[in-house]
């Protein structure tokens, strides 16, 4: 029975020709891999930038290759920092977990032949690609990349060249690149949501969806509602920079002894708009990783998810509350202290659904039969990292305590452990798990394990000391420590962190080697090597163009039926009709 493809004049047969197959493909699987590769490229760029940062901080006098006279100047350091954050947050954490894996596996896990709007999907990727190119172009202009941080607070980001090096063309390119990214994100989000609502197979009710699908769904809703706001903010910032408006620039400013010809703007307005987007953004970064963790913990412990419904509610609660807490980034900003109070209480509340998820992950493992393959190791690591990174949020959520910790590496440790490590572990877990399905081969298990051990230890060695740097009172975003006496005792620690960073970054090459080698020479994978229950494991590796070979799947049960009593097998795939189940 041949089904009509949704989404326009989509041919029943797969595309031919290299361009239609691999470049301008409308196949969600190809697009997912394209996003994944974009993220893979970007993460190595982002890591290189942070490598230079850490070398500079620990050994300021060292001769650094690629830099003029071997020196990293203060403005270059800040440019490295700005682009590191921007590229990692947008081009890695917002792409791979959602548009990478989500694009590839959402349609298959819900039994669809493709996304709702395949052409829009292709557009989303290429617009993202353009935004990356524009962003990276900031490095190549004479005055360099912007130095205002990924947060680009006005007026520093709005005043143009007079505010500092990189604040001219570099910052403008940054804003334009970001605006383009917003458009791509909005298009992608609406595709994900429509697909989840309208294209589920028969029998796949919302509460039978894998938790990966739930997180992709809620993440897409967050994206849809948040990126429009960032786009608006970016346009206003761009106008301040090039059209002489003053949305964010107040009057009476003097820079380098010259009066600035702007008036009537509010720097806090930028912060409100940016963080209204920025807070949901960090949940966009972490939610898919939570979905992968839930999915993998269940699969590799051979046990249903503990409290599936509670997990769904928790994901929805996190998404919903995530829109109400943005002010916790602004406790010191001069914002009304009464608003700060409200934001604080809401932020403390958002710890509750996060805690529920942690308890349920532990509950999933309890009474299980844990198999320690690479995907599972990274999922277990995710849980540990999420706890560590999550609890430090409780300090920062209290404005009075934030007085001591704001703008210190305590904050840097918090968001790196959650985003820069836990979320990345979610990506690694997903990669090791789904690689067989995407490419028909297994990744090397020994290499995967080595990658896990060294990375797990390494990231804790890098980021745990930063908490203590924060307690001591070290400021953030400073390119050198010699100007404050109280920082001198921390120099050995700075070196320790940098050495750990160099080692951990080096270990990631193992992952890259494993990935590339296995593409060609990995052991051939069976259709369902992990003995998992969801629909993607019922199709060949890699799946045919329309995923299910013209056959329409029907789903009979929830996604995590493992170790069902009375069955011969310890897993019950979703698609298996009751009469076909073998009982022992």
């Amino acid at each position: 029975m041949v089904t009509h493809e949704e989404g326009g004049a989509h041919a029943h047969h797969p595309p031919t020709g290299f361009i239609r197959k691999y470049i301008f493909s409308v196949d969600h699987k190809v697009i997912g891999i394209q996003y994944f590769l974009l993220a893979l490229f970007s993460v190595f760029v982002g890591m290189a930038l942070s490598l230079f940062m850490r070398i500079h901080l620990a050994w300021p006098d060292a001769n650094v290759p690629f830099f003029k006279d071997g020196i990293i100047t203060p403005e270059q350091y800040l440019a490295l920092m700005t682009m590191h954050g921007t590229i990692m947050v947008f081009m890695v954490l917002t792409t791979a977990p959602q548009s990478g894996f989500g694009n590839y596996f959402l349609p298959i896990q819900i039994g669809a032949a493709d996304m709702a709007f395949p052409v829009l999907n292709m557009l989303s990727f290429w617009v993202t690609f353009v935004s990356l190119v524009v962003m990276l172009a900031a490095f190549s202009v004479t005055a360099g990349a912007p130095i205002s941080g990924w947060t680009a607070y006005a007026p520093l980001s709005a005043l143009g060249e007079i505010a500092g090096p990189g604040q001219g063309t570099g910052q403008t390119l940054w804003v334009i690149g970001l605006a383009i990214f917003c458009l791509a994100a909005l298009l992608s989000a609406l595709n994900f949501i429509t697909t989840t609502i309208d294209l589920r197979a028969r029998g796949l009710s919302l509460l039978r969806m894998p938790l990966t699908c739930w997180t992709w769904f809620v993440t897409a809703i967050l994206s849809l509602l948040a990126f429009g706001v960032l786009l608006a903010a970016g346009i206003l910032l761009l106008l301040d920079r090039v059209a002489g408006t003053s949305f964010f620039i107040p009057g009476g400013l003097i820079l380098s002894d010259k009066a600035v010809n702007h008036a009537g703007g509010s720097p806090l307005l930028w912060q409100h708009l940016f963080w209204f987007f920025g807070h949901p953004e960090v949940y966009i970064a972490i939610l898919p990783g939570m979905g992968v963790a839930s999915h993998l913990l269940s699969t590799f412990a051979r046990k249903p998810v503990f409290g599936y419904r509670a997990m769904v509610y928790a994901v929805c609660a996190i998404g919903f509350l995530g829109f109400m807490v943005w002010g916790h980034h602004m406790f010191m900003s001069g914002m009304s202290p009464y608003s700060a109070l409200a934001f604080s209480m809401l932020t403390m509340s958002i710890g509750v659904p996060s805690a529920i998820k942690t308890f349920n992950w532990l509950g999933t493992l309890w009474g299980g039969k844990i198999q320690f393959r690479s995907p599972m190791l990274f999922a277990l690591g995710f849980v540990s990292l999420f706890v560590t990174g999550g609890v430090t949020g409780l300090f920062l959520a209290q404005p009075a305590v934030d007085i001591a910790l704001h703008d210190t590496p305590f904050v840097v440790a918090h968001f790196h452990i959650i985003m820069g490590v836990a979320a990345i572990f979610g990506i690694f877990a997903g990669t090791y798990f789904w690689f067989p399905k995407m490419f028909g081969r297994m990744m090397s298990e020994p290499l995967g394990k080595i990658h896990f051990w060294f990375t797990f230890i390494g990231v804790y060695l890098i980021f745990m000391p930063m908490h203590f740097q924060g307690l001591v009172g070290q400021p953030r975003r400073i390119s050198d420590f010699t100007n404050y006496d109280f920082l001198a005792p921390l120099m050995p620690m700075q070196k320790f962190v940098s050495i750990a960073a160099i080692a951990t970054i080096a270990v990631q090459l193992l992952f890259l080697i494993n990935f590339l080698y296995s593409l060609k020479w990995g052991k051939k994978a069976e259709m369902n090597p992990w003995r998992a229950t969801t629909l993607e494991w019922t199709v060949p590796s890699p799946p045919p163009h329309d995923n299910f070979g013209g056959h329409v799947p029907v789903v009979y049960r929830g996604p995590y039926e493992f170790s069902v009593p009375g069955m011969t097998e310890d897993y019950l795939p979703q698609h298996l009709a009751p009469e076909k189940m073998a009982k022992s």
Partner: protein
Amino acid sequence: MPTAVIGNIEIKQGGRDGWPPPPPDGGDDGSRGPGGDAATVSRRAYFTGLTLALGGILMFFMALTSAYIVRKGLGENWQAIALPRLLWLNTAVLLASSATIEIARRKLARAATGAFHTWWWVTTTLGVAFLVGQVVAWREMVDRGIYLAGSPASSFFYVLTASHGLHLLGGIVFLFYVAFRAWSRSSISQGTAAELAAVYWHFMDGLWVFLLLLVSLGQ
């Protein structure tokens, strides 16, 4: 022939790795999704997609709106700008185009394709007329010395109207697309496409009224 062994039951699966799977035997009428055939699902998906797109667009304008309200509320040196009367005429033109797009859509639903095309052209013309009117209104303001960078009030005015105008331009492109694309080769009908365009158009209409009231009230 490879087989799968699940428990004690051998199932002949055919092909390599049990692929392709055998045709479903009974109980599967081949329908996909929470009810309906492929064409129905497709139609519904487009409406879902459009609703979501409007949600995203709404958030964009809400960001600008809240920025406007906050800035205005700050008090200091907020100089309201005098709005050209032409804007009200433009509004009437846009409202009229909403009426005509409705007429066109209904004509198409009754298969009166000739009448549909006529009213569709009227709508398009009115839409273009609106945009032209907006540009004329801008020129008038510039002549009176009200520029983009002049004051917070004028900056917001230009940003709000330009953003709306751009989105309406997108709507006009959509109108052309509905008129000229070969709908027989699509999974949705021209009638559905016209409905989608109409929803978008009405939204832009309502948004314009909202924005105009926002900038003109409390003058």
